[in-house]
């Protein structure tokens, strides 16, 4: 079997006596969508932050395509093929949608030591950006400032910025958060279109989305991994029921 795109080995993080990440080990295979579910406060966002490099774990290893990235800065990890969609949309607000995606493409495909030529005249970057925007359905909004986009459009824009970089792994922190039914359908459609093409680690509360997208689920409770399996298996898993429905689960 080929090497997993992401391998987390025995990751631990404590804030004093509080175990936010408790010996977590999991992996994400090529083209797999691996969803992490769990009640609030289970440590899901903290886990993503450690994978992205924004937080330092106390012990354990994080491997991207077999290479240890535990000591690398967030920027270095991004250069190795890690892309991240934040829990609250993080865009360059005054830039247009096209400029945002073009900047993302610039990070991977162009030198930024260009001081004279207008970035908007760079045909390669603009084409890549337009293609990515079309994939997420934002082609018509290319010239709109990111600050003026609707919530769902902002989410899609973030996904486009990640896609244009052709990442190895996409980290999504609650992509459906704050999205209405229409927006959720649209975002799910976009992610389904990428299924099998890019490996994804997805945190999500919306169960319908999780079951529609995920190849595998992992349940995080109190910082520790309580169960892992395919959606079909997890649907009937007593731990999952207990985590979401409490001890009164039938």
């Amino acid at each position, binding site marked *: 079997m080929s090497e997993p795109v992401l391998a987390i080995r025995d990751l631990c993080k404590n804030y004093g006596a509080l175990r936010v990440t408790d010996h977590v080990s999991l992996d994400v295979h090529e083209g797999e969508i691996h969803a992490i579910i769990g009640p609030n406060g289970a440590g899901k966002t903290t886990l993503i932050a450690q994978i992205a490099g924004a937080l330092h774990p106390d012990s354990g290893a994080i491997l991207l395509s077999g290479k240890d990235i535990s000591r690398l800065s*967030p*920027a270095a990890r991004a250069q190795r093929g890690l892309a991240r969609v934040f829990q609250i949309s*993080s865009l360059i607000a*005054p830039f247009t949608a096209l400029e945002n995606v073009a900047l993302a493409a610039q990070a991977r495909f162009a030198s*930024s030591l260009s001081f004279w030529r207008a970035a908007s005249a760079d045909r390669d970057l603009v084409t890549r950006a337009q293609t990515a925007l079309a994939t997420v359905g934002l082609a018509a909004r290319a010239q709109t400032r990111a600050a003026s986009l609707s919530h769902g459009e902002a989410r899609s824009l973030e996904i486009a910025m990640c896609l244009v970089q052709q990442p190895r792994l996409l980290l999504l922190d609650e992509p459906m958060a704050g999205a209405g039914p229409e927006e959720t359908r649209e975002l799910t459609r976009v992610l389904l279109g990428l299924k099998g093409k890019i490996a994804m680690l997805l945190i999500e509360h919306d169960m319908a989305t999780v079951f529609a997208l995920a190849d595998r689920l992992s349940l995080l409770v109190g910082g520790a991994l309580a169960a892992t399996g395919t959606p079909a298996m997890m649907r009937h898993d007593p731990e999952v029921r207990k985590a979401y429905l409490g001890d009164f689960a039938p």
Partner: protein
Amino acid sequence: MLLHRLTDFARREPTTALLAPVFIIALFAGQVLGVSAPATLLARAAIFAIAALSLSFILGQGGMVSLGHAAPMGLGAYVTLSLSMLGFKDLLGVMACAFIVGALFSALTGLIALRTRGVYFIMITLAFAQMAYYAMSSLSVFGGTDGIALPLRSTLFGWPLLRSDSATALLALGLLAALFWGLSRVTRSRFGMALRASHLNEARFTALGFEPLPYRLMAYSFAGGISALAGVLLANLTDYIAPSFLDWHRSGELIVMVVLGGVARPFGAILGAFALIYLESLLGGLTQYWNLALGLILLAIVLARGRFERTARIAP
């Protein structure tokens, strides 16, 4: 109707509204009021506008609030002095040396200062500038705290271009225009987009794979070099170089110029520099308490702009 339009304009663009009459008064009634000669004043304004524009670039685009930007400017003046003392006065050569010294000073201090943000950055830039100030004050060969006269004014290919203040003014205006055009191109370039993004959303910037420090350092060093060029012209204008060129008051004045004209737009720094220089001169000719008057006027402008921006945000 016209009055309404004028007050509206004054509220939207307080600095311009104030500058226009001040400029006209200084131009025509200047001699009567004891204001400096028009050419000298214009040259001075243009020279400070060059330094202010370079500060506005790193402040507005990169979010780097430097309270030490007078240091490279003063160092540029001291380079002019040193070379002049050695008998070297070719303008292009002097400018090249000054640019290198200014950029190097900013690069080395930036390596330390740019690892900090916010108030800490402001304080560190201030500290480095003060170090440079005291260093120059302690050098007796340069006249210590009193300063010293410039032995030889710079020449352009042997031609004593800078002997007249009008020519200096024209040269400064030319350099200012070239800088403005150049910076507007840099802002739209790939480097400029990256620099702006590093300031607008650092988390997203790093998540995309960019490291912020190299961009900030490059911009900061470049701005230092430009400020030094302004220093060369200032040395030629005043014919006298003193450590006060690097003083933190000067750095503060540069910040005031940038803020006065409006941080958001690149032209703002030029506007602010002209406004401050002309106001200082005019008020200085009118009253002994010109500092007080200047302070009150600055306060009025900032408050007017604040009120306008608040209402502009509420109105759709």
